[in-house]
């Protein structure tokens, strides 16, 4: 194998390795989605297509719930897009690390919350030539697990959840554990530590208050505001001392 092929293969492998922890979070949730969608009257094929094409967890649950309850179709569309509006900031944040390949915009179909979090950490560490291989590998593992999990849930979800209830309870902890590992290197200064801690606490409290869908953007805005406040305070102190 040439060195170029070796580097390519390792970028693919690293992408797959990095995405593996996602399976613990994706598969149980996808199984639940498959099960709930079938129980709401969708066929297994329709359920799998929803996961394949929309591919956005929270909004998929909302989609089937609103359709099943007979909500107006325009409202379903608006609510789905509103929930997914947080994705607006993901592409621009990884743009500096992407080449000008025309494939990148198409590959954004795989840019979920978790893939964004992974890519934002990993892409800057990779050589430019390895980034697309890494991204495709990680995104395909995540997308594939979401689709397979949905299919399993639609076909045998009820049996699985009754036979191994503990599995569905424990495996989703992979997601907070993964986010924690991605965040840990960012506690580099008082300003960042305060911003991160306040954001985490705000998101936690908002989620506990039942604001599941707005918790992420609201807590992030809270964190950004605090970051600017601390920065202004540090500048003012610097001027006072300087």
């Amino acid at each position: 194998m040439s060195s170029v092929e070796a580097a390519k293969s390792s970028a693919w492998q690293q992408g797959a390795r990095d995405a593996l922890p996602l399976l613990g979070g994706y598969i149980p949730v996808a199984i639940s989605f498959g099960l709930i969608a079938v129980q709401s009257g969708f066929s297994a094929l329709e359920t799998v297509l929803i996961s394949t094409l929309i591919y956005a967890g929270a909004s998929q649950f909302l989609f089937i719930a609103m359709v099943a309850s007979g909500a107006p179709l325009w409202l379903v569309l608006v609510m789905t897009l509103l929930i997914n509006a947080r994705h607006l900031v993901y592409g621009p944040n990884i743009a500096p690390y992407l080449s000008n390949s025309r494939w990148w915009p198409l590959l954004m179909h795989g840019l979920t919350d978790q893939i964004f979090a992974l890519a934002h950490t990993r892409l800057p560490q990779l050589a430019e030539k390895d980034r697309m291989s890494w991204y495709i590998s990680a995104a395909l593992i995540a997308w594939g697990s979401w689709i397979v999990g949905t299919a399993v849930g639609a076909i045998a979800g009820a049996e699985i959840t009754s036979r191994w209830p503990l599995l569905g309870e424990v495996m989703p902890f992979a997601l907070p554990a993964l986010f924690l590992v991605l965040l840990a290197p960012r506690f580099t200064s008082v300003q960042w530590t305060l911003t991160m801690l306040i954001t985490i606490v705000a998101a936690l409290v908002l989620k506990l208050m039942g604001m599941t869908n707005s918790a992420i953007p609201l807590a992030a805005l809270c964190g950004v505001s605090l970051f600017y406040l601390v920065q202004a305070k540090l500048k003012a102190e610097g001027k006072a001392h300087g």
Partner: protein
Amino acid sequence: MDKSLWLLMLACALGTFLLRALPLLWMRRHLVRRSISNSTEAMPLWLTVLAPTMIAAMFGVSLVPAHPGLSSWLATLLGGLCTILVWRRTRSLGWPVCAGVTVYGLVVVLLRLLA
């Protein structure tokens, strides 16, 4: 699903895709205009701050267990501590997550047995 539902599903899928892809194209043009396409210096500060805070917010939301209770909160705390300790030793991605999930599961099972 009838025809209107299929169209709705396709519209939701297309809309979600555009929410992910269009901002990338916008930022690409912005970077090209600044002629420093491989640098984060052209990024507005608010955007570079927003990215880590979005990840922090996802972490905060994901911390809430599906069935909140004393045992799941304790398991979350100990699983999180174990994750961070293993990360400090290995500085890797996979092992800390594996260790965290294992400890989380063990605490849930142990507390269930004790109860």
